[in-house]
């Protein structure tokens, strides 16, 4: 039996489940993926099995005549990339077990953000290295949905 993967947005209003295995996991540097994700690139995993929405649905934005991108309209998490009516690819960071979705290929290298060549060389800075940060962490209450399915969940925030 194949393994199934669950995930969703930050607030938990939109949740999905899909049967493995992962068909394709990639990063894309194109300017449309950068801007859609507000990020240096976008990471997507696609599956042959259909994506099942177990809570809510993404809101779709048509980013070109050929493609729709889905996101949670309550918290903004980017969730999907879909050509036509095809099975959507899913944003890797939205998976509950994000460690298990390993990207294996890179699209649009010609548009790499220059820092991507040296990501691992960036200076590390632990959170909680100052008194102010330690005080913040001591009282922090996350409103993020946990990294597992929940039977009942009221999005907060």
């Amino acid at each position, binding site marked *: 039996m194949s393994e199934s993967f669950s995930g969703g947005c930050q607030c938990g209003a939109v949740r999905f489940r899909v049967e493995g295995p992962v068909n394709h996991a990639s990063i894309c540097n194109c300017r449309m993926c950068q801007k859609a994700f507000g990020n240096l690139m976008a990471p997507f995993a696609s599956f042959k099995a259909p994506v099942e929405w177990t809570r809510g649905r993404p809101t779709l934005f048509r980013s070109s005549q050929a493609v729709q991108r889905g996101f949670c309209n309550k918290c*903004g998490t980017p969730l999907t990339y879909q050509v036509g009516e095809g099975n959507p690819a899913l944003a890797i960071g939205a998976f509950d077990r994000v460690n298990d979705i390993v990207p294996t290929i890179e699209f649009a290298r010609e548009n790499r953000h220059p820092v991507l060549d040296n*990501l691992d060389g960036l200076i590390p800075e632990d959170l909680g290295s100052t008194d102010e940060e330690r005080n913040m962490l001591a009282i922090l209450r996350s409103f993020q949905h946990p990294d597992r399915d929940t039977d009942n969940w009221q999005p907060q925030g």
Partner: protein
Amino acid sequence: MSQNELTGGCQCGAVRFRAESLGRPSICHCRMCQKAFGSFFGPLVTGHGVVWTRGQPKLFRSSNLANRGFCADCGTPLTYQADGHELELAIGALDHPELAAPTIQVNPADRLPYFEGLANLPMQQRSAEREPFYAAVVSYQHPDHDTTRSGDSA
């Protein structure tokens, strides 16, 4: 660098901003940034003197201490702001994200196990069979510069 270049916004162009100057650019590995950005990390740069020149981000309170802003029309993650702190802008939302090359990685304890290999993935060549798809794409993304529209603030 011209101040006029420190502009940006969401993918659809409903929300646009301008910053007077930028502070420290970083990536954050924490699980909340990963999930909010749907990605491996959150890329943020401090925005000094940010004004919203079109629309406003919708805010999600991701914890009792911080808000995250995004475009309600297209979903682009745009901001992170801890209470009492300066606004942080999503680097990819800048019209010229190359102006904010991260220098620091925050919260390395949450780094994904494949992070170190991200720069060395094999490159996908554009195949001949995909060329018609690329050739036919009509982008609806807002251009990487300010545009005028009635009702915009200066």
